[in-house]
C-alpha cells in the first residue's frame, strides 16, 4: 500500500481489492486461468510459466468516474504533463482525446493498443489504470475558460515553495498506474506515441509504493520518512461523494474531480539526524504503527487537547497532523501520492520525496486552506520542500463509444 491510502482489507469500501478481483474474473476469465496455473505449478513442484494472480487483474475503464482515483494505489505510477502544440484547436483536441481514450480502454483491459508494436507487453495489466486531466492552459488555449470547474485555478504562491518549472504546470495530464512496472512502462510509451502528435512533454514523474505482493495486509503504506502515511482518507463511497466527486456546475464536470500534484523533496539526510521521538513529534503520530501520540492503534482518534506532565501538548502545536487536520467537512480530500527516488545527487545526497497527489471537488475551498495552514506552520517543512506544482481538472468517466472530456469538448 502506498502512503496516504486506505488499507486494502477494508471490505466496506466500494473500491476494495476483492471487488476488482471479482470484476476481473467476470470480465475476462483470465484470472481463473492464472489461478489454475499457480496451483499446477505448486502441485507438481515445478516453476512452470505460472501467472501470478495479480498479473491479469483488471480495473474497468468505462464508468461514471475515471479509474485511477478511487482505485487503491498501484505499486508503480507515472504522471505525464503535456503542453498543447501551438495552434491546437478544439477539433484537434477531440481527435486526441478519442485516441487516448481508445488506447487506455484497450491497454487497461490487457489488450494491445491500436497499433502497438509490442503487443506482448500488454497482456498483464496488473490493475493498470489511465486517467486524464486538463490544466488551466487547456481551458485558456481552447477558449473554454468559462467552462473551468468551480475553484479551479493554479495554486497561489506559498512561502515554502521552491518551484522548478521543469516539474510544474501542464495543459494535459496522463496519469498511469499498475502493479507491474513493465506493463506501466509499455502503457506510458503507447500513450506517449499518441499524445506527442498533439502536444510536447512538459514533465514526466514516476513513483512507487510497496509491491502489492509484499505489502503487509491491512496496513496503511509508508513514505520514505518511514511514516505510516494515508491514515486519514476517504474510503467509503459516501466519503468520496462528499469530498472527491464534483457535482453541479459546470454540468460537464459532474462526476469529475480536481487534482493537485506537488513534487515535494524530502531531505532524508537531515531527517536521519533525528531520533525516533523527535520524528514522531513532527507529525504527532507513532512511527511503529501510525497511532496518534495520544492513542494505541493507527485509527484511534487523536486527542488534540491532551497535555503531558509539563503542560505541553502531547500532539505539538507545530505537528503536521494538527496543522493539516480539520473538522470542516468542506476542507477534506483524498491523498493518493507515490514515493519517488530518482537516485543520488553527485554530492551523495538523496534525490527523493513524494509525488503528492490530492483529489477534491474544489481546489480553492478544500485544498488551499489546508495548504496555507501547513505553509504558515508545520514542523515537517524543516525536511520537506515543494519543488513542483500542477493542477488538473479530471473529467468524469465515459462509456464505450465515448471519450474522456466529451462533455466539455463535444
Amino acid at each position, binding site marked *: 500500500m502506498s502512503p496516504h491510502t486506505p488499507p486494502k482489507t477494508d471490505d466496506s469500501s466500494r473500491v476494495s481489492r476483492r471487488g476488482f478481483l471479482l470484476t476481473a474474473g467476470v470480465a475476462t476469465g483470465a484470472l481463473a486461468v492464472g489461478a489454475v496455473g499457480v496451483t499446477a505449478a505448486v502441485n507438481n513442484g515445478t516453476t512452470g510459466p505460472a501467472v501470478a494472480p495479480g498479473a491479469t487483474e483488471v480495473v474497468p475503464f468505462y464508468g461514471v468516474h475515471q479509474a485511477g482515483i478511487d482505485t487503491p494505489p498501484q505499486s508503480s505510477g507515472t504522471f505525464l504533463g503535456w503542453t498543447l502544440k501551438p495552434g491546437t484547436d478544439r477539433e484537434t483536441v477531440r*481527435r486526441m482525446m478519442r*485516441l487516448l481514450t*481508445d488506447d487506455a480502454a484497450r491497454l487497461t483491459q490487457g489488450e494491445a493498443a*491500436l497499433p502497438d*508494436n509490442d503487443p506482448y507487453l500488454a497482456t498483464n495489466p496488473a490493475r493498470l489504470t489511465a486517467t486524464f486531466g486538463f490544466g488551466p492552459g487547456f481551458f485558456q488555449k481552447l477558449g473554454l475558460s468559462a467552462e473551468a470547474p468551480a475553484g479551479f485555478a493554479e495554486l497561489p504562491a506559498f512561502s515554502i515553495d521552491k518551484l522548478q518549472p521543469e516539474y510544474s504546470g501542464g495543459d494535459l495530464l496522463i496519469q498511469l498506474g499498475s502493479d507491474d512496472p513493465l506493463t506501466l512502462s509499455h502503457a506510458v510509451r503507447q500513450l506517449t506515441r*499518441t499524445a506527442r*502528435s498533439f502536444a510536447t512533454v512538459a514533465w514526466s514523474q514516476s513513483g512507487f509504493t510497496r509491491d502489492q505482493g509484499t505489502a503487509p495486509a491491512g496496513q496503511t503504506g509508508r513514505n520514505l520518512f518511514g511514516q505510516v502515511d494515508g491514515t486519514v482518507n476517504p474510503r467509503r463511497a459516501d466519503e468520496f461523494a462528499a469530498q472527491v466527486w464534483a457535482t453541479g456546475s459546470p454540468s460537464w464536470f459532474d462526476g469529475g474531480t480536481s487534482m493537485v500534484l506537488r513534487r515535494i523533496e524530502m531531505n532524508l539526510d537531515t531527517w536521519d539526524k533525528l531520533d525516533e521521538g523527535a520524528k514522531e513529534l513532527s507529525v504527532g503520530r507513532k512511527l511503529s504503527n501510525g497511532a496518534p501520540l495520544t492513542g494505541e492503534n493507527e485509527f484511534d482518534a487523536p486527542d488534540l487537547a491532551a497535555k503531558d506532565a509539563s503542560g505541553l501538548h502531547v500532539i505539538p502545536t507545530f505537528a503536521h497532523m494538527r496543522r493539516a487536520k480539520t473538522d470542516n467537512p468542506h476542507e477534506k480530500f483524498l491523498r493518493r501520492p507515490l514515493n519517488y527516488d530518482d537516485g543520488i545527487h553527485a554530492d551523495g545526497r538523496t534525490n527523493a520525496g513524494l509525488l503528492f497527489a490530492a483529489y477534491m471537488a474544489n481546489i480553492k475551498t478544500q485544498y488551499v486552506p489546508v495548504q496555507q495552514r501547513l505553509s504558515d506552520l508545520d514542523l515537517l517543512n524543516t525536511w520537506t520542500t515543494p519543488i513542483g506544482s500542477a493542477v488538473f481538472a479530471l473529467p468524469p468517466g465515459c462509456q464505450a463509444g465515448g471519450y474522456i472530456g466529451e462533455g466539455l469538448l463535444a
Partner: protein
Amino acid sequence: MNTSTSVTKRGLSLVAVAIAALALVGCAPAVTAPVTPTASDVWIKAVPELMDGMAMTGVFMTLENPTDEDIELVGATNTTEGLTEKPLETHEVVKNAAGEMVMQETEGGIVIPAQGSVTLKPGGYHVMYWDLLKPIPVGSTVTLTLEFSNGTTLDVEAVAREIANANETYDPEADAEGSTEMNH
C-alpha cells in the same frame, strides 16, 4: 505484380458483383445472398505531411469470415474526397531475392479463411494508398470500400494512427524500374 494484372483482377471482381446481382434478381428464393466479411480495428498509418510528392500509406485491419468457404479481399476503393486519384491495391510483404523485406501487390487478393480471420498489419498484408493528394493527420478518418471475391463490398472507416514502422520498400517484382522507398 504489374498494373495490367491489377486492372484485370478488378475487372473480374466487378463482373462477379454483376453476376451476384443478377443471381439475386433472377432466382431470389433459391439463392442465399453472399455473406459480407466483417472488419474491425481498421486503421491507417497517418501521413502528417506529404513528403517529396511521394506520399503513400497503408490501411490495416482484422477481417473475419463467418462462412464455410474462403473469401478473398480482392480490392478496395477510396471514398475519401480528394485523398488520391490512384486505385488502391492489396499488398503483401515478402522477402526479395536480395533478402530484403519488400512489398508487392498480392496475387489474387488476401485470403480470409473459412470460419477464420486475417489481420492486415505492418510488415504484412495491407491495403495500399498511392500518391496522396493531402496529408492524413493523426486521429482523422479515411473512408474506403472493401471488395471481396464473393462479390460483396464493405464500407469501412480507418482512423489515422502514428506508427514508426510499416516502411517497406516497394519492389515491383524484379521489374527493372528499381524499387522505391515507401513510407506508409
